């Protein structure tokens, strides 16, 4: 468990670096804000409309699909780590095919999900 302290260490160092860079950029030169510089950039013309309009719902669907397949990937990870050891060990020889079959059932169910999403056209246009 001691092994995880460097994560905290590098987090603190990285936050320090980011903070130094931001502070550096605040104080390293003069700020001369003019009206044009402060407006949102729209290729040189006056901005039309607000930036907070509603976006398409497709982003939500992509995020939802990503979430569910991510959970599947997370279930696959311990299986993959254990799989080779189980298949090649002496003790669990009789469980080889069961182990394999379990995950295949899982993946088939999720594959059905992928086919459903595909056929419904959610993976089309703008994606």
């Amino acid at each position, binding site marked *: 468990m001691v092994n995880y302290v460097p994560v905290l260490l590098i987090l603190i160092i990285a936050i320090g670096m980011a903070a130094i860079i931001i502070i550096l950029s605040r104080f390293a030169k003069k700020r001369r804000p003019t009206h044009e510089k*402060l407006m949102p950039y729209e290729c040189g013309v006056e901005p039309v409309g607000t930036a907070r309009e509603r976006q398409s719902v497709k982003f939500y669907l992509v995020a939802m699909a990503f979430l569910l397949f991510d959970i599947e990937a997370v279930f696959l990870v311990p299986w993959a780590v254990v799989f080779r050891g189980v298949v090649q060990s002496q003790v669990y020889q009789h469980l080889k095919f069961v182990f394999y079959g379990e995950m295949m059932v899982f993946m088939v169910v999720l594959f059905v999900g992928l086919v459903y999403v595909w056929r419904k056209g959610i993976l089309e246009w703008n994606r």
Partner: protein
Amino acid sequence: MTNLLLEWVIKTIVILLILVTAVAYVTLMERKVMAWIQMRVGPNRVGLGKFRLWGLMQPLADGLKMIFKEDIIPLQANQWLYVLAPALSLIPALMTFIVIPYGSQITLFNYTIELHVTRMNVGLLYVLALTSVGVYGIVLAGWSSNNKYSLMGGLRSSAQMISYELALGLSIVSVLLYTGTLDLVEIVDGQRGFHGLAWNIFHYPLLILVFIIFYIASLAETNRTPFDLPEADSELVAGYHTEYSSMKFVMFQMAEYLNLITASSISTTLFFGGWNGPFVGRLPYLGPVYFTVKVFVLIFMAMWIRYTVPRFRYDQLMRFGWKFLLPASIVNIIISSTVILFMR
């Protein structure tokens, strides 16, 4: 305990220094490679004082220029998020490098040093976790800039990143089937032998397909061409970093190149034997050398692809990620597990 802490601090600082220099010179390498592919020369004048160093001080000049540019914060932008977003992009990009093994062990002044900062038994999941957190910097940058182009670029870019993260994760699962461990140090140790050439990609040839999927997915993750529509200049202006100037922009660029270096490092660790190579047993100092060479070959390949291939349109990109790469990585898992089930 304090000995250990000191060792960690020194290793972390050394790695960060090397990384920051590496990022600076990768930008120079990018410009030179771009130039040579486009049949011109690239920056070759910036030197130091009277010494013309063939352009090697170019990153220093660029850095100094960026520091002295004016820091504009748009009027309607959300101040806190606007400043937080580049930091959120940079910090996960820096944190990956503590789990990657750069060599085996070297002995320095009677002190044995392992050439990795720390050794986690869930190292590969840690890398995946940091990749997942890297999305936030982009989507918050897009939102907080209060600019239509930024918002659209940010949303599209993050949707692209999460789509390709799936293919990335599933190709990592394929590798895990062969290695049986998430610990990166152990994965590299398992690729020793055969005069240092028992790399995973030679030992298990099916991993070539997995590597191709992993590499393409990592190119899309880091928003490099041909997947850089959300930040291409002729498309959405500059996408999520339109409104950023000076050092915050530098932070985004640093994060992008750091992500590229991370992706190449993980590829070499998983597929190409990490620091393994001929004669590494006798001369442990060769370990980091082999590692660096392999990482640079992969970075060069990424740049080569960037200046050769036209970019995908956004819907083609998403279609490719969901309809081709994801099923391909699932099929790879099934094939690899079937092979393992029936072999040896």
